């Protein structure tokens, strides 16, 4: 079985969010970057588990510049067999999806994993786009995935509950919490990762159609109003008269 995992690089979850260049770019100075948690903890680990159970290979793909190699090597250390980096700094989800789809089309993967969303742009778009480019079924927000022969049974998060779906290979799936448990790379994994192939390929030409061009920070919160624990009637009054939420 051939599995592809799409991974993104994002600022670490506690990173200070600021912008530069007239608020047109994310200010990465002093920011630590990580593999997007949904991609790492859920998509990648489940892919490796499937490979361990059913054989085959796990390939990770990232669309990004050379500095992303550290994040990619971590994926190899966790257990992916090989990696591909499309050498370009992308500016939109559609651009990323196009690059991944062009690579995957040649390779005929059985399962293509994405994370549920990235924690920077929060778009949740790439999985569906890749699926559409490749005319493959897509199941989003998967929390469990089991495979019997060609047939997969997948539960997915829906508003206030879950849905169980079935689909035959090949398909694209986006992974949410529940799919797997985070794996910390061990020393052996880290050593082996250095020898695993990381192929750098050029992008295919593609024009962006929608791009984030400027950023702002939300207005600062005003100081908290403290209410005495003995006076809950006062809190109710404030919620009703001042905040007008009840």
């Amino acid at each position, binding site marked *: 079985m051939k599995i592809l995992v799409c991974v993104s690089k994002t600022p670490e979850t506690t990173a200070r969010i600021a912008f530069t260049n007239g608020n047109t770019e994310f200010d990465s100075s002093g920011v630590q970057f990580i593999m997007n948690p949904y991609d790492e903890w859920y998509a990648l680990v489940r892919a490796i588990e499937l490979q361990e159970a059913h054989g085959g290979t796990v390939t990770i793909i990232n669309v990004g510049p050379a500095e992303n190699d550290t994040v990619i090597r971590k994926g190899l250390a966790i257990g992916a067999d090989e990696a591909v980096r499309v050498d370009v700094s992308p500016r939109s989800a559609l651009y990323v999806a196009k690059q991944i789809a062009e690579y995957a089309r040649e390779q005929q993967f059985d399962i293509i994993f994405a994370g549920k969303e990235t924690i920077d742009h929060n778009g949740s*778009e790439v999985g569906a786009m890749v699926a559409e480019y490749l005319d493959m079924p*897509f199941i989003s927000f998967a929390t469990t995935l089991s495979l019997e022969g060609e047939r997969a049974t997948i539960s997915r998060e829906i508003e206030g509950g879950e849905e169980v779906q079935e689909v035959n290979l090949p398909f694209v799936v986006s992974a949410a919490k529940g799919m797997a448990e985070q794996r910390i790379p061990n020393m052996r994994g880290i050593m082996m990762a250095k020898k695993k192939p990381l192929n750098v390929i050029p992008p295919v030409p593609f024009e962006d159609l929608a791009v984030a061009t400027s950023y702002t920070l939300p207005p600062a919160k005003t100081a908290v109003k403290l209410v005495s624990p003995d006076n809950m009637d006062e*809190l109710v009054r404030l919620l009703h008269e001042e905040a007008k939420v009840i």
Partner: protein
Amino acid sequence: MVLVLVETQKGKFRKPAFELVTYGYQTAQVLGTECAALVLGTAEGAEELGKYGASKVYHVQDSSLDTMDSQVYAAVASQAASQLGAKVVVINHSSTGKSLLGRLAVRLNAGSVAGVNGLPVLEGGVFKVKKPAFSGKAISEYEVTSDAKVLSLMGNSFQPKVVGGPVAVEKLDIDVPAGRVVSREMKRVEGVTPLPEAELVVSGGRGLKGPENWGILEDLAEAIGATTACSRPVADADWRPHHEHVGQTGIAIRPNLYIAIGISGAIQHLAGVNNSQTIVVINKDPEAPFFKAADYGVVGDLFEVVPRLTEALRKFKAEQAG
């Protein structure tokens, strides 16, 4: 034309549907055009969408569309958009919408913006629209340069507004392709507003000490008709179901009122709730970081404070009703 793809649940329209039509109507006004609604599968009362500003409702009535297969939905919706000459397609930023947005972008060769929370503007002819990014810690503005555009609308960011009356529903003849995904089962908690749509949310953290103590939180939620949520360690320990987990790695919500009980307010938790309109924090530790993000705070033992708040709310509700 602005085409809004309106979702139903078991054939019925719910609040997100009306929010979407309101958004579509106001977007159409910005662009100087009309808003039409597209409804897929079994649906009752589609004409009512006119109230929120749809000038017409198009209905593809095929029961195979009662469950969502993104491939099938995208094929039907993109065909409808082309047939009707819609330049902008808007859907909800829901589990269904998020599965479709990317597909529609590819099919319609459209620039896409996921999770918008403001109306687009035309600046010197350039289409711009904003959305929250960096898990609620920033707002990004997108420029969409393609002729066709697809947007998904963040829940609870536009309140439904009645602007007219019911309109005609026209059947749309579109071939519905066979799907490859089979829906086996839908498990939903009945009778509760799902978290992403809830206006009032009561949320508990590790400060509650154990699942056996959730009764006081549920009483509070019940007093005001709120939906319950929890922090990540609470879901990880299986004190509460996973779909209640809010935050960076759970779901992001933006209710009108978020009451955080025994939650410290770690940055990853705040990432999922910091867009709430009003935040109330109940915590015994005056140094808890959550107070910095709160509008109202109560420093005290939750086991005493919460039942008192519930009682005060019940009294208030009774007075209102009386």
